[in-house]
């Protein structure tokens, strides 16, 4: 089995370790990871500023980049959400619309994809750590009534204490362009979020959304309370290995 890696711009250049971890976890489950060239931005920024024209142009690029059949896996809930919105950018009945529907249907958030693989339940994962999980509002919803994929995966790691902050699914205040246009509100929200996280005294912060990780860990750093901020994939990859993870060696 193979999967195409859809690596968000933020991960590509600022959190490349998360992308490497995605590859490691996928390969440990027997999935060959392919990385199509030419990835830049899925169009989320344009789309969320009301710029449908540029969003469409960027979507067309991604329809090309991921034209080859097979699942597309992405370590970001919000980027997956964007791809799942592609069909709305094209007129129904057109070939582009059809391609967008096809791509949307085979694009998966990393945790969602891994949790659905055979063998996900028997990952021999072990890591002694107190981890606070930030359930980003951008993540795909869990199966009705059930626990969502990232929580399921993290709970399966032996030794990992999963800490859930008060209002753990509440937005961290980033919201892309919102954080610039409404910087005071954005800051108030990230302050709330950090307070609610730090009261639990976690060793690491975990999320499956790179932009939330950047926002929250950026503020924690400004507070002088920086703790490692990791993608779920990094925690899983570390828990599959014997050696001490890089973020712990530092």
């Amino acid at each position: 089995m193979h999967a195409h890696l859809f690596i968000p711009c933020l991960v590509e250049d600022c959190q490349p370790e998360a992308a490497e971890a995605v590859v490691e976890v996928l390969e440990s489950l027997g999935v060959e990871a392919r990385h199509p060239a030419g990835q830049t931005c899925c169009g989320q920024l344009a789309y969320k500023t009301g710029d449908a024209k540029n969003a469409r142009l960027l979507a067309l690029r991604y329809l090309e980049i991921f034209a080859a059949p097979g699942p597309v896996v992405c370590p970001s809930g919000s980027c997956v959400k964007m791809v799942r919105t592609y069909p709305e950018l094209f007129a129904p009945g057109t070939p582009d619309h059809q391609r967008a529907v096809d791509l949307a249907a085979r694009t998966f958030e990393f945790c969602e994809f891994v949790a659905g693989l055979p063998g996900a339940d028997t990952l021999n994962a072990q890591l002694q750590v107190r981890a606070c999980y930030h359930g980003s509002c951008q993540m795909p919803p869990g199966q009705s009534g059930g626990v969502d994929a990232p929580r399921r995966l993290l709970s399966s790691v032996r030794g990992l204490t999963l800490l859930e902050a008060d209002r753990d699914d509440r937005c961290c205040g980033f919201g892309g362009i919102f954080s610039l246009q409404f910087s005071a509100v954005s800051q108030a929200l990230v302050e709330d979020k950090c307070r609610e996280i730090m009261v639990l005294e976690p060793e690491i912060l975990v999320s499956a959304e790179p932009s939330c990780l950047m926002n929250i860990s950026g503020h924690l750093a400004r507070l002088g309370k920086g703790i490692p901020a990791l993608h779920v994939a990094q925690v899983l990859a570390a828990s599959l290995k014997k050696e001490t993870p890089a973020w712990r060696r530092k």
Partner: protein
Amino acid sequence: MMMELTTRHFRQQSASACRDSNLRAVLDHATRYFMGKRGAALEAFAGRDEHFARARSARLNALSRLPDLLEELERNATAAGVKVHWAADAAEARAIITGIAKAANVRVIVKGKSMVTEEIELNPALEAAGADVWETDLGEFIVQLAGEPPSHIIAPAIHKSRAEVAELFAEKLNLHGQSIPELTLLAREALREKFLCADMGITGANMAVAETGSVILVENEGNIRMSTTCPPVHVALMSLEKVAATMQDAADILRVLPRSATGQKMSSYVSVLTGPRKEGETDGAREMHLVILDNGRSEVLADPVLREALACFRCGACLNSCPVYQTIGGHAYGSVYSGPIGTLLSSLLLPQDLTRDLPFGCTLCGACARTCPLGINHPKLMLALRQRVANGRANPVSSAHSLLARHPLAYRLAVGVARTLDPNLHLLPRLPGMPGLSEFVDSRRPPELKKPFAARRRKTKREQKQ
């Protein structure tokens, strides 16, 4: 109390609200209180999803047949003895209602809580026509005395402490009390006098039923029942989307609305009013009017995405669930309607140049959509409004970014140069065309530009081959 429209200053107002620590504490308490009550009620609500779906279906069914249903409503209400009026905009609605008041020689008016009367700025018009107008919902009464607009659909005075209310009652009414029950009793006595001498009662309408011509009013205090029972004239002002096709649809909505609004299985009082009092009855209005208000709504029905906002039945749950509302409260939005649904309604009903910022004051986190019992997808509508505001003109930052992103070589080159010159992005706040970046960077250390994943992957692959 009427408010000046300040939606234009939404951004500045939201920033000031953030700095008001008292307001933040009150909002935190209030929104958690409402969400807690609601959560408990929904937990215990057997068949919740089916009931939600039925309520949604009742609302959408009404919208999909709106003109026919309004005519049917008019027919049946008229047959029941109601005088039905149509108002294209706020000015017409004000003229109709002040006209009714003048014709009946009205001096004292009691009002039930109604967002729509706030929307059309009714009180100043009635006062200018010589009437003495009393808001009778306790929260509305408090904000009226204070000369402030309401700050929440359900709890208009949540921003006021008991001490502030005590001071207000002492100053404006010369009534003295300290505890909350005392203050409530004072308001009861002061307003009871008004109910008993009022010449006219004005209410909104939670629904009107096309099939029967009935107006349905939902409340907890009893002030709306008083306003429709004691004065000889009752005027109900309804925005035109609030129709239910049948009494059965109305019942399905009543199953959901109180639970979602306040966590009650049913509000303390639901009144189903079908016409004025019948012969032989000793109370209830002798004359009943229904004013059907458009004020921009009819135009929205043609938009397949945005018309979903008209399904709203004003439970207020999206406000309480919204992290932005939880932080800035209602006043910052600068119009009658606040929070997620308020952003949508104001953007749709007010002139566009006043509301450009509203749909951007949202993180698109979707808490509202997950909360809405009617399944309104607020973020989707928010994005549609952003497109409408942008009107094909891209934000300069987004434009530049998109241009780069369409050319991967240039994009990689740009990121590479940035990584070489400024890997910790110290220069980020100096980027032109991005106001807000320096504030962002003040409170968040920017991410570090690292050796990109693709390059690392190529290196790993090479090593594996060797």
